């Protein structure tokens, strides 16, 4: 989640949701998911602006040991607030931070609480992010036994000097081994995350990373352009001139290299930064975000969306634990989306997908802009009166969105 939460409206102390949101939630046929934010890392990476803390930063105030109990308390609160509605959970995603810093049993226990309170749908997707250096086969066995069926490893690069700039601690080759271990343990779905455009990364380095990923044969790849986020150590180094700012043209070239390599290897894009071997390999949890479905985000700083209401939890683990101990909602603030907000969000999210956006979502001005973008080679008309980004359009998605939301 981003470093700076948006401004919002206050949330009642008990966390109760507006009746309209509850009614929409109860009657919706769209999927419901759970996100669990584990806000701990062994060390902080220089580029990272996520809500995460090292043991030193926390100074013993909110220990990892009690985290599972706090998260479970929030899951129970969720059950109370959402009412006795029968909406089994379709996807669960543990992210962070580094979820695998916790004992595998803790992750399984939290998942168990979700199962107990809400029930898991048949074939539910249950993912955890994992750091290549913090898992071993025994750990993976415990996760699998606990109900996890998808793993996402933060590989970032196959090159030592690139990993060093990113402050990643694993050695090259380790993520590929993790994929093999995951397969051996019986995980059906494995993702590798990549970052391109790191200062010091050459086209050749990037090519090596792509080759390493494809050699490991995951069924899903995410590739993100490095963003120099304000307030990070990396931003400081760029500001002081120690590292160059990633160049947009270079980032565009790297993206094209990645898309070409993945496509050739049978991984098709289905979201601007995500590729999968087939529909079943897509990350259903992320798709839930991108299609305006409902999810509850548990954990410090986690964001939720239920029936047109978005809210976000207090960010510090100690504050989070304290709220739950006092039987109050950990939500910090929320926003109630208007119909226009939701229309705009649909355009900006769905346009990033390979299914594209229905033109019916656009105003007349927006439809004209879409026609123009088709002429300019940024959009492609699809069957069912939809438009989808072309390869060049994907690289200019934000600009296209700005034109389409008018």
């Amino acid at each position, binding site marked *: *989640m*981003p470093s*700076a939460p*948006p401004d919002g409206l206050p949330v009642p102390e008990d966390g109760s949701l507006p009746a309209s949101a509850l009614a929409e939630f109860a009657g919706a046929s769209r999927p419901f998911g759970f*996100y669990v934010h584990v806000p701990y890392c062994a060390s902080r990476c220089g580029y990272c602006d996520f809500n995460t803390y090292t043991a030193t930063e926390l100074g013993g105030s909110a220990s990892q040991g009690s985290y599972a109990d706090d998260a479970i308390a929030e899951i129970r609160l969720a059950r109370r607030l959402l009412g006795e509605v029968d909406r089994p959970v379709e996807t669960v995603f543990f*992210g962070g931070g580094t979820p695998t810093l916790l004992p595998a049993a803790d992750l399984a226990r939290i998942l168990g609480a979700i199962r107990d309170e809400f029930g898991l749908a048949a074939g539910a997707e249950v993912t955890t992010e994992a750091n290549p250096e913090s898992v071993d086969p025994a750990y993976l066995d415990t996760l699998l036994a606990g109900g996890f069926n998808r793993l996402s490893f933060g590989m970032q690069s196959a090159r030592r000097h690139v990993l060093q700039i990113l402050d990643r601690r694993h050695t090259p080759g380790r993520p590929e081994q993790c994929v093999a271990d995951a397969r051996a343990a019986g995980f059906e779905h494995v993702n590798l995350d990549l970052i391109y455009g790191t200062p010091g990364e050459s086209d050749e380095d990037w090519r090596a990373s792509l080759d390493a990923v494809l050699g490991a044969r995951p069924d899903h790849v995410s*590739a*993100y*352009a490095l*963003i120099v986020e304000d307030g990070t150590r990396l931003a400081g180094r760029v500001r002081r001139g120690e590292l160059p700012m990633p160049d*947009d*043209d270079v*980032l*565009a070239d790297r*993206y094209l290299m990645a898309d070409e390599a993945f496509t050739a290897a049978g991984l098709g894009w289905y*979201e*601007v*930064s995500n590729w999968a071997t087939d529909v079943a390999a897509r990350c259903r949890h*992320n798709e839930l*975000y*991108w299609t305006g479905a409902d*999810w509850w*985000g548990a954990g410090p*700083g*986690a*964001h*939720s*969306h239920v029936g047109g209401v*978005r809210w*976000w939890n207090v960010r510090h683990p100690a504050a989070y634990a304290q709220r739950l101990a006092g039987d109050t909602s950990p939500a910090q603030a929320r*926003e109630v989306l208007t119909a226009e*907000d939701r229309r*705009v*969000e649909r355009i*900006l*999210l769905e346009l*990033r997908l390979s299914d594209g956006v229905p033109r019916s979502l656009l105003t007349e001005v927006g439809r004209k802009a879409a026609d123009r973008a088709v002429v*300019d080679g*940024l959009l492609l008309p699809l069957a069912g009166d939809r438009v989808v980004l072309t390869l*060049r359009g*994907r*690289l*200019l*998605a*934000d*600009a296209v*969105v*700005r034109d389409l*939301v*008018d």
Partner: protein
Amino acid sequence: MPATPPVNVPEPSRTDPALIRNFCIIAHIDHGKSTLADRMLQITGVVDARQMRAQYLDRMDIERERGITIKSQAVRLPWTAPDGQIHILNMIDTPGHVDFTYEVSRSLAACEGAILLVDAAQGIEAQTLANLYLALENDLQIIPVLNKIDLPAAQPEKYAAELAHIIGCDPEDVLRVSGKTGVGVPELLDECVRLVPPPIGVKDAPARAMIFDSVYDSYRGVVTYVRVIDGDLKKRERIQMMSTGVTHELLEIGVISPEPKPSDGLSVGEVGYIITGVKDVRQSRVGDTITSLHHGATEALGGYKDPKPMVFSGLYPLDGSDYPELRDALDKLQLNDAALVYEPETSVALGFGFRCGFLGLLHLEIVRERLEREFNLELISTAPSVVYRVVMEDGTEHTVTNPSEFPGGKVAEVHEPVVRATILAPSEYIGTIMDLCQTRRGVQIGMDYLSEDRVELRYTLPLAEIVFDFFDALKSKTRGYASLDYETTGEQESALVKVDILLQGEAVDAFSAIVHKDKAYNYGVEMTKKLRELIPRQQFEVPIQAAVGARVIARENIRAIRKDVLAKCYGGDISRKRKLLEKQKEGKKRMKMVGRVEVPQEAFIAALSTDDSGGKK
């Protein structure tokens, strides 16, 4: 020195012309005129120490801060001459800058004498010299005075010799004063009585009074300063403006000493003010002749001219919604500025604004500064332009004050205004100055040594070359020692072309320029480069071209942007993304569209604001 006014002072309207001395002070901006005037006010007793404040006569704040006097006033000072006779000294303050030559000439026409005031540490400046020549043309008695003799850096011998050389007197005749300490000021006043001739007019003739200044006052309306040449004006009589035939009632008449003092009238040779209740200085024009409605004069005094704007510039509010405020502000300023003209104008780049005409660059700066300071407006101004006369092959003529209105088609001749420039500088800079004038298409018409190491250079220069940055260049190349004066002398035919700047084939009006054909290429290269740096990349390649007619003389490309997408989009990013999008949409609304190219107004402004607008080297 008398601290209180003498008794039995002659009253306005009943003063014997033989006792009147009308004089002005000719001085460069910072040579201490206002300080000397302050001392005169004190020494003659019209202002006591308690009321005294620095630069007493400079009413407007802007003048006080810049240390310059824009609007002149006339102060009536009683002074007892060494013979014991009380005289009336009318000190007429003159504007001190090149743009106000006409106003200066009218002030001079109201006087019989002029104090030539020169800083004893700096010597005479070009502006002063020019006004001195004007005074000599008006047959004024010149009293040469060196000021600031208290300064350690003063070189009174050197500059007395210089002044003596210029006006053809003995260096011993040059008075030495300190406006700051008051030394020599009483003697100077005595010399005024002794040397300045009394006014000569016909007392029994129909009234004729010359307007030498006209100031708008928000409480009183227009206050008009006059010098009565013949006859007299009386309280409450009806008067007539001879240039327009418009009549007014004299609601108030009086003298300034140094606050307004109403009187029964003003008679032959006297200087004072009138108030008629008009609200606009255009109804009471500098140079015009006032006469009585009944039994008035039939012939006006000579020398009246309509103020003629020489320099034009587009003024635009930075925030387009300030346009009505800008219009109101210009309306108000015009009440007090007969030379300011303006009409609405629209620009692709800058939106709605006004094409404004000014007497010159300083006038432009003053108006702009007053608009920003007094009306809290943020403005952008386009590069100043002069008035071109374009003759087409079919004989038709166009007057062009805005380069974007330069006619297309077959142009036979282009005429541009030229000036006669006078530059005074230490002789070591002669080469530098000649180089500068040469590159600005100047033609030398003369050169004189004022003293061993000071020289006067005279050039004919196109006004267009001066209105950009000539003065700044001159100052920087001579380390501030050179001074400049110029007066327009007519026009010349020149090989001028219009350079258009095109974005993706569409001309951007604000950047069109009329330049000499030898400089067109430079202007084109500089402007296209600058815009390439300032305009953000678009989704498509944008060519920036400079063209003369259909011929492209310079070209730059803004490469198409290739990446405009945030890679990640997690659940927690959605609100932030939507809010960012809303912000970007707001930003997009402020973009100016040139064809399909989105240009932030800031880019236009930056291109126009930079010191060097190109093509002028």
